[in-house]
């Protein structure tokens, strides 16, 4: 495998293609999960970063990983921008994952508001990683707005259902020049592997790890699956035939001239 195969998001490069979530499980497991996952980026809902001494989640995140604060809780572009500013003020760096939801039931992203927030924050030199519903037109708009990656959902967040939006994510991978990072709904290492084989630049997971019987072990399983999927993608998988087997001898060998 090419040793220079790095994930590039904006001006930053990473060896790991696994972005780990930090919500939904005990904070004292975060450090070990990061290690087993080999993750270099961990997401953090800024709304969870409290000022109290009691189990402040930021105290449990290892210093050697990049913090990717998200704007969850924002319902409009304006609110997302305000949360991004707060994140920068409290020293979370210039990465921002835009999450704008107007629906408390499914937590589906609002693509329209997401484009608006991306445009504003990219102009302010944030490295903007928008969570989005996989729509090619929206992805193009996000690229034009200055996004550093797009993060389409595979399935409803927290559902562990896997690549429900597979065909649409494939379209983004085929058409969009910036990294396509599959976010939300990935429930199994095999699904993460499949996303990587398709050509996704990285995979993000939270609930899949948080709801596992052994969180640390599952973090390690995801790491291996994502690496395997990436390697398979680079190795260019053999074609899949739709209509049965392919004859190894030519069917048209009888033609004389």
């Amino acid at each position: 495998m090419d040793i220079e195969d790095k994930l590039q998001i904006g001006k930053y490069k990473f060896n790991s293609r696994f972005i780990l979530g930090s919500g939904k499980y005990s904070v004292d497991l975060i450090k070990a999960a990061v290690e087993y996952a080999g993750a270099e980026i961990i997401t953090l809902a800024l709304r969870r970063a409290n000022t109290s001494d009691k189990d402040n989640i930021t105290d449990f995140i290892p210093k050697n990983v990049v913090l990717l604060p998200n704007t969850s809780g924002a319902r409009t572009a304006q609110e997302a921008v305000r949360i991004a500013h707060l994140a920068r003020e409290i020293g979370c760096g210039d990465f921002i994952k835009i999450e704008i939801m107007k629906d408390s039931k499914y937590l589906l992203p609002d693509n329209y508001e997401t484009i608006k927030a991306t445009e504003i924050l990219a102009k302010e030199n944030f490295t903007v990683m928008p969570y989005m519903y996989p729509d090619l037109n929206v992805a193009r708009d996000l690229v034009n707005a200055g996004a550093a990656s797009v993060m389409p959902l595979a399935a409803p967040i927290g559902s562990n259902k896997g690549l429900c939006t597979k065909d649409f994510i494939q379209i983004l991978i085929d058409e969009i020049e910036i990294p396509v990072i599959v976010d939300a709904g990935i429930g199994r290492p095999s699904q993460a592997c499949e996303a990587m084989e398709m050509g996704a630049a990285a995979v993000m997971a939270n609930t899949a790890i948080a709801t596992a019987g052994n969180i640390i072990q599952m973090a390690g399983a995801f790491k291996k699956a994502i690496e395997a999927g990436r390697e398979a993608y680079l190795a260019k998988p053999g074609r899949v035939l739709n209509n049965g087997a392919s004859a190894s001898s030519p069917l048209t060998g009888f033609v004389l001239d």
Partner: protein
Amino acid sequence: MKKYDCVEYDEDMELINSDIIDNVLFETENYNYEKYTKKDVEEALNSNNCSIENYKALLSPAAGDMLEEMAVKAKEEREKHFGNSVYLFTPLYISNYCENHCVYCGFNCMNQIKRAKLTFDEIEKEMAAIKETGLEEILILTGESHKLSDKEYIGEACKIASKYFKTIGLEVYPMNSNDYRYLRECGADYITVFQETYNSKRYKELHLKGHKRIFSYRFNTQERALLGGMRGVAFAALLGLDDFRKDAFATGFHAFLIQRKYPHAEISFSCPRLRPIINNEKINPKDVHERQLLQVMLAYRIFMPYAGITISTRERSGFRDNVLTLAATKISAGVSTGIGSHCNTTEDKGDDQFIIADDRNVQEVYNAVKGKGLQPVMNDYIYV
């Protein structure tokens, strides 16, 4: 909109255009829980998307015999939507003056209890003392007196609270949408209003005096709060006042319709109950024992898996800690229902609304949550 009580709206009461009340009361009246069988409950538990019909089955007596199966499903949903997070908060009672006569309530205006309200200085001292415990969320409560705890008084309390806390809830008397807009600007994030019972006839028998008599104005409170810009709204029936199965159904269905109409609203449930008198089962088979309360909480969790559920301090610690792993997501800690008792320098000025069954302080509740393998979360919210 139909009238559900004989009392006209008071002049200052805002009338909103909503058909949710008609819908909820019609469905509740026609909810016959006796017709559901074990098979219906199994179907509900096997469904990926709990329908209204499934929800009715989950609240039926048939489902009461299948608590274990319900618990498995509820636990799954809880983990999917909330992981192992448990949100901690404490209530602060700032005034117990009340203009209502609710026959079941210790604060009611006919009761000769010690009445008091905190001064702003006392509120600040109380809040500073609560903040010291590590909490980031507070629920401000008053009795229902428009005169002695007016909206400006509550607004000032919110402003003080926003200096100390990240999330501010209000459990005060129902107001108009413009009042909620004002309180939102003062820093409030969500409101809780108990409908008490959704049976309007029973409601009339229980609420004899005061603004609270007007059933439909109270019913529409959550909607007015959302119109006023509140972020979240909480729903509850005081289970045991009337037929608890119908009241629990109505509470969930009310919340469901509000979420449909206002998809951004953060929905949550409280689950207060009237405790049955011991050995009263034969006299009142509809009493709400722990089993029934658990059934209701599990049904809420399965029907609206994304909604918050708060477990009351009226329940014993063993019940509270365990129900957190299955259905509830939020627990109060360090609770006092008197007026001003968090801080040593504030004298306990007024009598308590009710006796609590779990008097553990914040650290003790925190330890218990951890002991269940759950993660105490002090804050999960940004005021934007």
